[in-house]
């Protein structure tokens, strides 16, 4: 009798321990990237969607309407696949206030009727990270002088979609009068006042209203977002002396400037992206006076070198660069 009890106990223990003894993941069908493993939340960490990334469930709903999915991320799961599976269960809704994650053996899943609740995460979280953006810029709207610049910007994302930051532009040494400027002067014997820039700096606010993803050839998923930004700062500029270069020489002067822009970013990793941005720097520009004088005394008078009227100038720059998010890693609020 006693032996029988022992045997039953062994069998009971085997039944209990069985599920915990098996491998949770099958190496053949499961793979994670290093960064995903590192970014995974600690065991037992379970949080609700707060709405900050509320777009995640919302996004999935929108995606479901379209009928697309994607894979190649972590388990090769596709959001559409997941949603399709969920739709098959009919009663499941992708609301954000549910506890997400696979139920461990012995625990009761909070999801009725289906073991999968895998809402795909936003590829790269931005909140509380600093976006450092080194870039190179070329002017797009000045036919007479090609302004080029090296730029660096840094923006701290207060939320997933809103950031505050600074940016700096260095132009000096990268301004070059164009062929058009030369050609016009040669053909018409007329000169157009032109200016060169030295540097600029701005404080900006950035808002990211659009984000999305592409399936490249239906195989690789590319994540991207689009932002708009605006702010104010200053820029140092001066006129080229073209009307009377024999006498006139100008110093750089500071002008207050505003800037607005729009940019797009294609993520290469969760912390690095390439971006293109079109930004318009708007400022009141001083131009060389077109008035000429015949006497040396008049020509030397500095007060006559600058036109009395400021000209509101739009310096539209195309920036191409790299977007680096610091810290490089981040933790998702929810497991995958």
């Amino acid at each position: 009798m006693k032996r029988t009890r022992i045997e039953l106990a062994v069998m009971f223990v085997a039944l209990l321990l069985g599920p915990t003894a098996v491998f949770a993941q099958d190496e053949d069908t499961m793979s994670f990237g290093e960064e995903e493993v590192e970014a995974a939340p600690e065991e037992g960490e379970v949080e609700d969607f707060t709405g900050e990334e509320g777009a995640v469930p919302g996004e999935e709903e929108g995606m479901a309407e379209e009928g697309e999915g994607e894979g190649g991320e972590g388990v090769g799961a596709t959001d559409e696949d997941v949603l399709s599976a969920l739709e098959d269960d009919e009663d499941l809704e992708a609301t954000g206030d549910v506890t997400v994650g696979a139920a461990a053996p012995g625990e009761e899943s909070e999801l009725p009727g289906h073991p999968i609740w895998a809402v795909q995460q936003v590829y790269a979280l931005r909140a509380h990270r600093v976006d450092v953006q080194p870039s190179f810029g070329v002017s797009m709207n000045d036919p007479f002088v090609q302004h080029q610049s090296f730029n660096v910007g840094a923006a701290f994302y207060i939320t997933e979609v809103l950031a505050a930051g600074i940016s700096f532009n260095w132009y000096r040494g990268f301004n070059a009068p164009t062929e058009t400027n030369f050609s016009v002067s040669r053909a018409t014997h007329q000169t157009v006042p032109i200016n060169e820039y030295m540097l600029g700096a701005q404080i900006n606010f950035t808002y990211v209203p659009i984000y999305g993803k592409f399936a490249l050839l239906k195989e690789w998923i590319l994540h991207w977002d689009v932002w708009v930004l605006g702010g104010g700062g200053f820029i140092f500029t001066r006129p080229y002396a073209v009307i009377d270069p024999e006498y006139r020489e100008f110093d750089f002067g500071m002008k207050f400037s505003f800037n607005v822009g729009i940019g797009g970013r294609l993520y290469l990793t969760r912390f690095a992206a390439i971006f293109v941005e079109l930004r318009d720097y708007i400022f009141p520009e001083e131009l060389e006076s077109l008035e000429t004088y015949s006497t040396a005394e008049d020509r030397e008078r500095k007060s006559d070198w600058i036109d009395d009227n400021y000209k509101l100038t739009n310096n539209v720059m195309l920036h191409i660069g790299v977007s680096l998010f610091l810290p490089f890693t981040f933790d998702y609020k929810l497991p995958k």
Partner: protein
Amino acid sequence: MKRYIFVLAFAVVSVCTTAKTATAQEILLEGPLAGAPAVRKLVQYREMRFSAGPQFGYTLLNEYMHNFMLGAKLEFNILEWLSVGLVGYYVVNAPTKLTTHISNSEDIAGDATTPADSNFPSYTGAGNFEDQVSHMKGLYMAQIGLIPLRGKLAVFEKLFVAIDGYIFLGGGVVHFEERELCNRSGDSCGDMNLDGSGSVVRESRITGTFTFGVGFTTYFNDWIGLSLEYRLAPFKWNAGGTDEAGQAGTEWELVEEDDVVFWDPVEKGSGDYPDGNISEEDRSWNSNQSISIGVIFHFPLEATVAH
């Protein structure tokens, strides 16, 4: 002994069979997601459908004339990733600030500037300058489109729309009006004179070009979308209607004598500039960059869904 063997066998079988029925992780192992394709049930907005709609464009980096493009695009999408199509634009012109600046230029006496012996016929005077520069009139292209990107975007975390990204390559013609070729020495520059009188004649030209560009189309439903694209269609023309060819020969220096300022010809090189001709050699490449936005309607109205 048999009993021990039975118990041991039961335990082993229990472990093995339980492993097969462990739920949560096992679904990830061998569930419906394993081996799933990257895209399923794709709404095929393009395949075997026509796309047509109005287009509105603007050329970039204009020197003398702004070009506002009104046109239409018609495409047949053979596959979801391949299309062939036609696009045509009629161009409306407006002078740039540079052209306005020169057209309004005045000499010391307050009169409209006129050409001098040193720069005629390169310059025809303030009153003629807007007519002197080239005017683009149309752009007509046939093109093949490749659509490697397909995805979706979220706007304000509320609006979700499908989007695709495409490149296109093709060829066609550009129609523009360019200043008529003329030879000063041959007195073939019309009735123009050094006092700025007379008028400039522009002639219509059509030249071949290739085109290349990239674009995006967003789909609001099965049959209507919005496109945004960037296009290159380079060709050669004489944008300013000026004498450009040749190396430095005679140059003019501003000289002041007896309170009179004038341009004095000085031999600065052995080149032939200016040659006094408005010729084909004065033409240069214009990259002809443009951006356009358009509304796209798809026919038939219902899109298919891929398996």
